[in-house]
């Protein structure tokens, strides 16, 4: 009969209308600034640099190897290696800029980093009224402590710490073995909480 399907549809919308008052499954809107969803473990937005200890400058895990700069698909990372007065490389970035207006949150920099120095942040309220300087994050803005990393990605951070500790122990053992003939090498490499020696780029 003509009109049957229309009546069926009307009852369905009526059910949804009244259902939205009683059934929380029918009214799923999150009233954003007041309500927030808990962020998930894997959530990623833009990268940040992890530093150990309290000093964001000294504790930076980044050694300015520029692998992420090379692998970044939209080329949003810019790194300058720090050199001392004699021009010797310092294994530390002098400049580390990341343009989040270009970054596409693909996480490839995190995957390729052999030092676990760059990780994905979950901060998403980054709007800014200056679309050039405001969205270009420098080293200071990017550096965040390891406990922050633990806060946003607890499981992943624990794994990373475990791995780093194991590597450090291994490197120390190696250094100790090497220290027998040459005692000077050990302490110098183990300072600043960085991995003792740059890991060889290993296939993941």
């Amino acid at each position, binding site marked *: 009969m*003509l009109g049957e399907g229309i009546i069926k549809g*009307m009852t369905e*919308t009526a059910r*949804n*209308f009244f259902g939205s008052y009683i059934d929380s499954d029918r009214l799923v809107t999150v*009233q954003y600034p007041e309500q927030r969803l808990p962020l998930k473990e894997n959530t990623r937005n833009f990268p940040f640099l992890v530093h150990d200890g309290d000093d964001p400058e000294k504790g930076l895990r980044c050694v300015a190897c520029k692998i992420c700069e090379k692998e970044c698909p939209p080329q949003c990372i810019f790194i300058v290696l720090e050199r001392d007065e004699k021009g010797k490389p310092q294994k530390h970035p002098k400049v580390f800029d990341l343009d989040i207006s270009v970054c596409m949150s693909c996480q490839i920099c995190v995957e390729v980093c052999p030092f676990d120095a760059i990780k994905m942040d979950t901060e998403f309220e980054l709007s800014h009224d200056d679309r050039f300087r405001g969205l270009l994050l420098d080293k200071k803005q990017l550096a965040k402590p390891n406990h922050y990393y633990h806060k946003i990605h607890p499981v992943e951070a624990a794994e990373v710490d475990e791995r780093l500790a194991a590597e450090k122990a291994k490197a120390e053992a190696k250094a100790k073995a090497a220290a027998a003939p040459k005692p000077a090498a050990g302490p110098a490499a183990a300072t600043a909480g960085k991995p003792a020696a740059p890991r060889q780029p290993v296939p993941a």
Partner: protein
Amino acid sequence: MQEILDQLFVLLKAWLVGFFPLPWQPLVSILISVAALILVFALLFAVATILERKGLGRIQNRYGPNRVGPCGFFQPIADGLKMLIKEDIVPSGADRVVHFLAPIALVAPVLLAFSVLPYGRNMAPIDLDAGIVVFFAVGAGTELAVFMAGWSSRNKYSLLGAMRAIAQMISYEVPLILSSVTVIMIVGSLRPIQIVEAQAGYQGWLPAWHVFTPWGLAGFLLFAIAATAESNRSPFDMPEGESEIVAGYFVEYSGFKFALFFMGEYFGMFAISGLAITLFLGGWHAPLPFLEKSIPSYVWFFVKLFGFIAMFIWLRGTLPRLRVDQLMNFAWKFVLPMTLLNILAAGLWRFLPAGATRWLVCLVILLGAFLALGRSMVARRKWSPRKYRFAE
């Protein structure tokens, strides 16, 4: 006390008019009515927009506007302010004079149409003997405004929208008038107040409204269909046709002119709902006998009007839009024959003796026509739900 409450606005107006010298009194009386009408319906427009947005939101499982004021109920004020301060853009190719006149030409006749409706006991702004005719006459004026807007904008979409609007509104004017002819036949008057008074009284618990007779029910449904098409509401919103022709005839309007179109559309909806209430739903009469005296008559009118608005919102939230040609087919091949048969049924009802026979005769005619016409319409196009085969 209840009598005073019922006649509150009538007494208030008489008291106000009493301050003026006798020769001025008719003019002042009219001015007060006009001011009251504009005020009440502008307020109703604001309430209807927010109700519509919130209602649609709930139908679609979202909150709707809820940021401005308590539960978002000041949203229309914010919208109105926004509309007022927006730039008024006129396309360079447009016919400026007509482009300017069109929104005014849309709102003015609709406001005129409000003047003949009885809103409560003794509360018709003008008591015209040919009130229904006046209503349809001024209502037809909106078509001109719509075409003026579409043509003067020099936009292809607006032209298409205007063409559709003209075709649709003229086609549905016919069933609209023919379905109200039944009431005029039975009551024997074109005077809205007399039509309302003819629906006074109760048969047991059932009020003597026209909608509770077979021809009245059919007439009411047909009137409602034609009214939906006449006020360009979904599922007959082809002239606007957002997903097809962007916004139809008012695509080139912005700022307050756009707001006027919006308002004109809502006013048209209120006016035609008011007429449907007058013709079929007993006007300002209460649905149950014991409520007749205790609640003022104008309250009932507006309660029924809100019922109509809710129905319009519900339809809009559910149905997809018809196609232009299907709309025409529906008007001329289904609604028009139905209204003609309904006139026959109303005639039989008038001359058959009261009782079960005339109920039966009218019902058989109308239901038979509905089934036959509906089936032929679907069968001609081979429209049906389908079965599907599956490959393993």
